[in-house]
């Protein structure tokens, strides 16, 4: 860690010194913020847990996957790999490609606000799409370390409890729930609208849709990675063009 750890001062344990009531209020505030996302994550967790059991794995692997890996979309893929006993190199490469979008989250995630080495380790481990969506906004700039960590822990708890519940349900009922996966689409739609409200910028979503469509039809196997790479490149091009236009004006 470079400037991220520069903010960490071991001789000033600010978090440990906070009074218990304040600590509890940060946890309550975090759960209030993440509650809406929990309602989307929990049913997807149930679908995931049921899929784990239906593919023949022991129910508790749903709990292990969701708590130790904590990368929703990749965990769905891992079920198929595990059942087919795919080579570990293939699992590593797919995890890298599917989760490589997280590389971009380091640009605006407020890790400098998280205190303590353990806090920073957990915060980077639990840096999911949902955690990023909540913390990359301007309002999160004033959040204390505890609120960010509780927010991430609450999202983690929704996912693990949803997956475990789904696995438990899967052992008793054999019917498949169709359409539950749409909760993920609905969640990202809501987060996109909220992001647009925070910053009303028309060209950005148009550019994102164009990049997603190009990636979908040009690199169908690696749509997500290709779309993110295209989008970042075109944003940088747009930035360079606007800078050039401004200096020539």
């Amino acid at each position, binding site marked *: 860690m470079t400037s991220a750890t520069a903010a960490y001062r071991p001789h000033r344990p600010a978090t440990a010194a906070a009074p218990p009531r304040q600590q509890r209020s940060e946890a309550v505030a975090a759960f209030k913020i993440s509650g809406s996302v929990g309602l989307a994550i929990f049913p997807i967790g149930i679908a995931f847990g049921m899929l784990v059991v239906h593919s023949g794995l022991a129910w508790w692997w749903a709990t292990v996957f969701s708590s130790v890996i904590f990368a929703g979309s990749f965990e769905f893929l891992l079920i198929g790999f595990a059942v087919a006993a795919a080579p570990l190199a293939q699992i590593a490469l797919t995890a890298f490609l599917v989760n490589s979008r997280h590389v971009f989250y380091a640009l605006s995630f407020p890790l400098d606000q998280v205190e303590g080495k353990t806090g920073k380790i957990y915060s980077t481990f639990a840096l999911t799409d949902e955690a990023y969506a909540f913390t990359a906004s301007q309002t999160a700039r004033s959040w204390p370390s505890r609120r960010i960590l509780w927010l991430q822990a609450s999202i983690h708890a929704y996912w693990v409890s949803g997956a475990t519940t789904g696995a438990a349900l899967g052992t008793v009922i054999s019917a498949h729930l169709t359409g539950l996966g749409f909760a993920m689409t609905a969640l990202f739609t809501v987060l*996109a609208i909220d992001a647009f409200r925070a910053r009303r910028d028309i060209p*950005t979503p148009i550019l994102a849709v164009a990049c997603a469509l190009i990636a979908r039809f040009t690199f169908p196997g690696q749509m997500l990675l290709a779309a993110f790479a295209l989008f*970042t490149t075109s944003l940088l091009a747009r930035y360079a063009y606007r800078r050039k236009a401004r200096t020539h004006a």
Partner: protein
Amino acid sequence: MPDTPYLVAAVAVSAAVTWGLRALPFTTLAPLRTSAAVSYLADRMPLGVMVILVAYTLRNMPLVHPAQALPDILALGATAGLHLWRRNAVLSILGGTALHVALATSLPTH
């Protein structure tokens, strides 16, 4: 069925790669936070990333058979409409998902 040591290794590899991708960029990207280009990117990425994730979750939508894509299209419209109207994330997510489940089970799409 795969044996337990293999599954433990698979989980360990997945967790290590995922955490590495989430943590290591901070050591290399943190100094770039002061750059104007990076703050331009960081300003616009959240919206774009969410739009791309919406498209990604709908990637298997059968565009050539509009009738089969109907549950996705209608539920997406309902989710966005509800959220623009009521600004209540829980209502938008549950409403959209409930409509999707209802349409996917009632429409003769298969």
